[in-house]
């Protein structure tokens, strides 16, 4: 008996057979994977997970890849959950954790979703993997397609950061640089998907791709000793992963993996330069209106977020908020995390830590709550933003002599 039984529309409930499609024909709502939960309940246990590999595949029972499938893996997941005492001391939080997902094989959270997506696609006969990307997804897709020996097409905005382009190109995919922003790239790809036999990770195989996100929250709970935190801070781009983290908490409770059934507060983080979800949260609107992105947090600069409405619904239901930070606050937060915890994150991580800091300084927490911030990408991906922002304030240049050292370095 397969564990994945089909797809279901999140909006109207219409059911579909298992296939590469992502959108409901009736209402255009997103499709989600439907599992044989009764069957899974008989086998899922903490023990079974703890005996699994030290990667996200220890949660394989809760991912949409059947046991018979050979997975495409580079050892993604099971990244460090760092107790952030020094950052916590600055922010008045005694139980603060950073889930450092920049420690994945291609240095971003995207390895989780792509490992699932490409495993599913290869098992279902696809020979070409594609995606529209702000950089991190393309990086992961190019690496995993190489690993799997599949053809690869990545579509990126033409002005993507040079560091990201280099770390994509090394895997030798077909890179299509589109003269437009991410939303325009995405729109082109959602038209292309109809005329190519390709698996677009974030489009026609999105229902499977998105499921990989859950493992980040599964790990967080396991690493906390099978406990759920009080609050989770998550960066918001399309909102896709935010929704899956909420689902992951439901599954942890439903399968009896965590001791308490208290759902954490889910808080979303955006850059003010691209804050359509934040705008709707603050105004109380049901709808999320698109914006034209203008921010250094390129990896999360999606002006037309597909899951934005769900983010706001979840934030409100769980007692979380959606907050946004300025460009300056993003860079300050990157430095703050680096200076206090030795973790170098990209601009998107600066958004998450910036929102954490902003909320902490505004008195959101008493101090003993368990708060987890998801840091989803590595700083080397966007190192250029630091060079132009007084990145070497403590640097001196000296002659190779003791005299020069004594003169210039005041210790």
């Amino acid at each position: 008996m397969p564990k994945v039984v089909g797809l279901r529309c999140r909006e109207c409930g219409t059911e579909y057979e298992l296939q590469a499609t992502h959108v409901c024909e009736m209402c255009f709502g997103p499709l989600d994977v439907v599992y044989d939960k009764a069957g899974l309940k008989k086998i899922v246990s903490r023990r079974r997970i703890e005996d699994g590999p030290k990667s996200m595949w220890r949660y394989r029972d809760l991912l949409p890849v059947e046991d018979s499938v050979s997975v495409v893996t580079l050892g993604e997941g099971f990244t460090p959950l760092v107790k952030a005492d020094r950052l916590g001391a600055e922010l008045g939080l005694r139980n603060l954790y950073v889930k450092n997902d920049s420690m994945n094989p291609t240095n971003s959270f995207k390895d989780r979703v792509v490992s699932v997506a490409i495993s599913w696609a290869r098992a279902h006969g696809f020979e070409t993997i594609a995606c529209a990307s702000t950089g991190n997804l393309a990086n992961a897709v190019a690496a995993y397609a190489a690993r799997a020996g599949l053809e690869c097409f990545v579509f990126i905005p033409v002005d993507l950061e040079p560091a990201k382009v280099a770390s994509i190109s090394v895997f030798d995919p077909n890179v299509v640089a589109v003269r437009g922003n991410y939303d325009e790239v995405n729109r082109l790809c959602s038209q292309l998907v109809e005329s190519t036999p390709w698996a677009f990770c974030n489009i026609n195989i999105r229902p499977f791709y998105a499921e990989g996100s859950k493992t980040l929250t599964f790990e967080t709970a396991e690493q906390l000793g099978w406990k759920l935190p009080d609050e989770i801070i998550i960066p918001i781009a399309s909102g896709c992963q935010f929704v899956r983290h909420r689902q992951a908490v439901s599954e942890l409770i439903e399968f009896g993996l965590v001791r308490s059934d208290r759902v954490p507060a889910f808080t979303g983080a955006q850059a003010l330069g691209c804050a359509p979800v934040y705008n709707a949260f603050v105004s109380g609107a049901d709808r999320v209106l698109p914006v034209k992105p203008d921010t250094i947090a390129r990896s999360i600069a999606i002006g037309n977020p597909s899951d934005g409405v769900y983010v706001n619904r979840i934030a409100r239901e769980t007692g979380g908020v959606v907050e946004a930070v300025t460009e300056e606050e993003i860079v300050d937060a990157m430095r703050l995390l680096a200076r206090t915890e030795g973790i170098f994150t990209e601009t998107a991580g600066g958004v998450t830590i910036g929102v954490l800091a902003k909320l902490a300084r505004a008195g959101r927490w008493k101090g003993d709550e368990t708060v987890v911030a998801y840091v989803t990408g590595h700083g080397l991906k966007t190192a250029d933003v630091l060079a132009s922002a007084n990145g070497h304030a403590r640097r001196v240049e000296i002659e190779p002599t003791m005299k020069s050292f004594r003169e210039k370095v005041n210790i």
Partner: protein
Amino acid sequence: MAQFRIPGPLRRLSDGAVTVDVEAHDLESAIEALDARYPGFRDRLLDENGDLRQFVNVYLNDEDVRLGSGLKAKVQKGDEISIVPAVAGG
């Protein structure tokens, strides 16, 4: 005449047609004209209040109509109207 581009998931409604020509002066009347020719489109694109459904993106000559005048957007001869489902990513 303006031209609709129909996405795959909705082509069952248009008897498989990828493009459909309509006479219209704004987006709202274009959708009415599309629905008159192939009944069912109105319900798929608009909600009970007559607004564009949350998960439907409509582009008038490559510009998201929600960034402009929405359903009141003026439609001229030769305009292309694309219906595109929302997608995830990053």
